């Protein structure tokens, strides 16, 4: 026997992760079935399968766009490395990092314990999140009807590329669990991978998609690819 309100998280996911003109009717059908006595497990199963089926169908309908976004996301680190942007970030790092040696904060650079936290990487992580946010916003604006698809693909490929780093951070921590530096490293990588990167992509993508007017000319070109 189920209560009259469906599982909140499942219902939220259903309302926010399904695109297309039939969304209202589909959610209404699910609610009707639930009111007729279907279980919370059934509701969750239907939600997950509906989202997964909708996503794969969206990929199938926009194969070229999906392939382009995936490739762009996979090769984005290489583009970043070979562009001047990486150089500018490195120069910015030197601006604050080198003068630090002559201050009372010199231990951040000189102390071997603190050095292992790689503080010089922080700027590039922030810059990387900003690049992802800009890319996600642009894609959301260009493809307001497919924002969910492009943002999800960007998210999956970016988080997927971070997983090897997370794995090595976990291995370091397992090897020497008594040392808090490894735990900090693991928490740091986890925060970047599961909070900062997804947050930048999702928020910027949603903002771009909502405001998106779409550049008709650009869409005509890419739709005909």
């Amino acid at each position, binding site marked *: 026997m189920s209560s009259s309100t469906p599982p909140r998280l499942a219902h939220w996911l259903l309302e926010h992760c399904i695109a297309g003109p039939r969304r209202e*009717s*589909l*959610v*209404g059908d699910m609610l009707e*079935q639930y*009111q007729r006595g279907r279980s919370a497990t059934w509701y969750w199963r239907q939600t997950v*399968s*509906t989202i997964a*089926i909708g996503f794969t*169908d969206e990929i199938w309908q926009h194969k070229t766009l999906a392939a382009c976004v995936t490739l762009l996301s996979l090769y984005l680190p290489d583009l970043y490395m070979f562009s001047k942007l990486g150089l500018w970030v490195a120069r910015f790092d030197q601006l604050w990092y080198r003068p630090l040696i002559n201050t009372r904060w010199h231990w951040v650079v000189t102390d071997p314990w603190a050095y292992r936290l790689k503080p010089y990487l922080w700027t590039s992580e922030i810059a990387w999140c900003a690049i992802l946010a800009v890319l996600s916003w642009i894609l959301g604006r260009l493809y307001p009807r497919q924002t969910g698809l492009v943002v999800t693909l960007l998210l999956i490929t970016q988080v997927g590329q971070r997983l090897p780093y997370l794995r090595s951070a976990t291995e370091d921590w397992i090897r020497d669990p008594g040392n808090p530096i490894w735990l900090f490293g693991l928490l740091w990588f986890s925060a970047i991978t599961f909070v900062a990167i997804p947050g930048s992509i999702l928020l910027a993508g949603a903002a771009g998609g909502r405001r998106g007017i779409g550049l008709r000319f650009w869409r005509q070109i890419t739709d005909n690819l």
Partner: protein
Amino acid sequence: MAKREFLGGFELLVLLALIRVGDEAYGVPISDAIEESSGREVAIGSVYITLDRLQVKGLVSSRLGEPTAARGGRAKTYFRITAAGLRQVRQARRTLIRLWDGVPQFEGGPA
């Protein structure tokens, strides 16, 4: 020879359920009809995606109903099979019967 698209297995199931349910066919009774006859749970999402595809092919038409409180103020989308859809179902039936006939594994009752 003219190129003709075959109906997929699930597309045929949805069209048959649509014919069975009749004028009041929307997501819930369609998926119920498929579940009852197949004995398997059906994802409502897959029913809608199939109906959308069939509508693009011109085999199904749809209209929006009135929103109801029981559905959280959400309207039903009613579906109806078109004449082209009926022709495709009849064609699929003929093809299946022809293929079925004379298959030794299916003769003399269930295996």
